[in-house]
């Protein structure tokens, strides 16, 4: 097996409203680039397999698992990570409802909830369940997360 150094390409990514130029391997995942090259460690590796949702970020208007998305696929899109979320209602709701303990799944859950509430301002329970069942929280019993989401919806009414 001849080992040649991996070829890198220059791409421009729009992350949290900033243009970031970065040299990447075409095979690099978005999660790897965010964490290792852009210093945005809010999105977490949990399984690198799309199973747990700890790496969830928003790409344009919806939520993606950045561990199974290539960085090159995000070129031309607006990527929002937890670091790009400032003072949002769902962040406050997570604090007030004790919707986290260790905090590791929290950035992914918050991004997922945030995207859910953007896309479905008044979601039914079935819609909430469909969205949030893609993430795993091992510390809470999920009731607190449900209450956090519901409190944001109720405040809107």
């Amino acid at each position, binding site marked *: 097996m001849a080992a040649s150094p991996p070829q890198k390409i220059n791409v421009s990514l729009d992350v949290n409203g900033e243009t970031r130029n970065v040299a990447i391997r075409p095979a690099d995942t978005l999660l790897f680039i965010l964490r290792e090259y852009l210093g945005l460690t*809010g999105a977490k590796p949990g*399984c690198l397999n799309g199973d747990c949702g700890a790496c969830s970020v928003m790409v344009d208007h919806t939520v993606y698992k950045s561990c199974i998305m290539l960085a090159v696929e995000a070129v031309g899109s607006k990527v929002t990570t937890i670091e790009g979320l400032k003072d949002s209602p769902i962040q*406050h709701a997570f604090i007030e409802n004790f919707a986290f303990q260790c905090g590791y799944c929290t950035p992914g859950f918050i991004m997922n909830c945030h995207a859910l509430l953007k896309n479905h301002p008044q979601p039914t329970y079935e819609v909430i369940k469909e969205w949030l069942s893609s993430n*795993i929280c*091992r510390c*809470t019993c999920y009731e607190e997360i449900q209450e956090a989401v519901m409190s944001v919806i109720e405040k809107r009414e």
Partner: protein
Amino acid sequence: MHIIGKGITRKDSLEKVTGHAKYTADFEIKGMLHARTVISPFGHALIKQLDLTEAQRIPGVRAIVTGDHLPLTGEELRDRPPIAVDRVRFNGEVVAIVVADTPYLAMRGVEAIKVQYEQLPVVNSPSEALKPDAPLLHPNMGQYEKIQGVYPEPGTNIATRTKIRKGDRTKGWAESEVVVEEKFAFRTSDHAAMETRCSIAQIHPGGTIEITSSSQAPFMIKKLIGQYFGIQPGTIKVNTPLVGGAYGGKASVQLEILAYLATRAVGGRIVKMMNTREEDMLTSPGHIGLEAQVKLGCTKEGTLKVAELLYLWDGGAYSDKSIDLSRAGAVDCTGPYNIENIWCDSLCMYTNHPYAAPFRGFSHSEVHFAFERTMDVLAKKLNMDPLELRYKNAILPGHTTPTQFRLNASTVGNVPKCIEKLKELMNWQEGQVTNLGQHKVRAKGIACTWKTSTIDPNASSGVILTYNPDGSINLISGVVEIGTGTKTVLAQILAEQLKMDIKDIHVQMHVDTVNTPEHWKTVASRGVYMAGRAVLAAAEDVISQLKSLASFILRAPIEDVEVGYGKVFLRGEPSKSIPIKDIAYGYTFPNGNSIGGQIIGRGHYMMPGITYLDKETGAGKPGPEWEVAAQGVEIELDTREYRYRILRAVTVVDVGKVLNEKTLTGQVKGAMSMGLSFAARETFYFDSLGTILNPQLRTYRPIRFGEHPKYEVAFVETPHVEAPFGARGAGEHGLLGMPAALGNSLSAALSAEVNYLPLIPELLWKIKGGER
């Protein structure tokens, strides 16, 4: 009490909801090397050949570490080579470490290493391990180094045996009119913390070894790596930032050893080792399995007379913490009942499975599943209400535990009161089983639990308080913030004691073993008790320093000054006072003369009176107190498909005293969720070669959002006199009775004994004769 009990928000809140909270893997520096491992695909095999040549040729691969010339490791019995030599004993065991410039190149190195295995017969369960002709996993067991209280049986697969001999079992059986005997089994599983383990290691030019690790036991890393490699513990520095879930799994020292070996192989350069999910499940230690036999005898009226128990723990290939786990399972080998005659053998067995770490509850949910299921079988045979049977036999102050420790009103919680409250919350009088028609049945199941903490008798916890010039305080404790919110509660205890605003208490979340006082391990629901006592001592220290300085500035005897509300003041004339900020860094007279200095408080705590257990009878005081709970589950089962929904789960727990109602409720409900997930879904599936078929979160599937039932939690408050404000533990107790209560509800719904985990529809179908 101005702040104790209140559900104030966590001190780590803003960091955690903004993505700024740092966990071990979030630290990355230029030039850092990365290590990956070659792991065994089989449960038991000889390593016939290990060919590194091709991997060594890959540019960017800096070192390959193999297992030759390494010391044996293991917390109680040194049976584990850090990297396998000649033989692998479980699927996931490390065979080599590759250190390279990037994770990608390290993985290329791993793939280029060729290993030839010759498979050996596999020991796939603890009962197989016990058979006289079973393959021996550790033929040299007799030569292993061990610590006090470990009793390996060379020539067998028994790593240790703990005996409980209380009373006289012959007498107990003679007095028994009703007898039941049941068998139970479940395999090993996993903690599945969302943060996979990660360790970063380097060796500084002066020889200091620095390790940053996602751990519940940074001080144990220092101690054990020191012991294993003959290094002075003072030259080892361990950092632990926030930890992304642990549940016991990160109390074992494992990946840190590999990271140390990796940096040693590259001249001390900094190396990061991060587990993939698969490695975290296979290679790093998991959740212990159990096979159990429970035999109970009682009078016709349901008074328990005797318990005879055999626990065979699936400790896996190496004993590490499973020796202690099997001991803890013996200490509380029954439910929380008054039983005069108990005979228990608890055996830590070697198998070709991944080895075990502590798991939230430390053997208690496992033992309770077996014992509390048998209590229901007994109730059925007696034709007695299962809650009534438990109430009648509940352990009380004045009774003795299986280890013959006599309890009082402080050392045991109030079991009858928990049962009474549970009865009400479960609406128990409406009946246990309701037939809804159309193949739907609703059923309730209950369980009672207890637990003490079998931690080292000399485990120490320390706290340092330092003042800032504005009169605020830095609180520094060795407790690791693993998610429990303990450090927020410590701040509440301090605020209460100093009568100050909690906003003026700055909590250091990370642990650094150089400047943080030791807290033995962040385990066993003992953070608030031990570190809380250390906080109280440190607060006393600070108060006495403030008083002595202020007494002469205020020109009053020390006995007449008080501390609180940011001031030191005269008790009889509170308007005469001096702000703490004016003396927190000493006092300066108008002419510039100064005395004192920054006020630094210190406190520490060790639990009094803990003893080792007697080898022959198990007698002793293994822990400080027994916390108790009564729990229930209600399910709805489809009797055709055997699918069920958990409708609600209830816990009534005697917490001694509620310190932070919100974080406490979160701990209890989170533990209940983990217990239900373990009981209903989680297990490793092994094939005949000992290979695990589901080492990822797609196939190993914890409860997800939307699958959660409704949770209800209620508290009883019987103070533990020695603990801060009387508080008992919080982290584990919600979990302990969940598997048993779920098993009891399904057994009631099916009118059949459900004695295996996980409780999946296929199992229920088989129990009802589906395969016939």
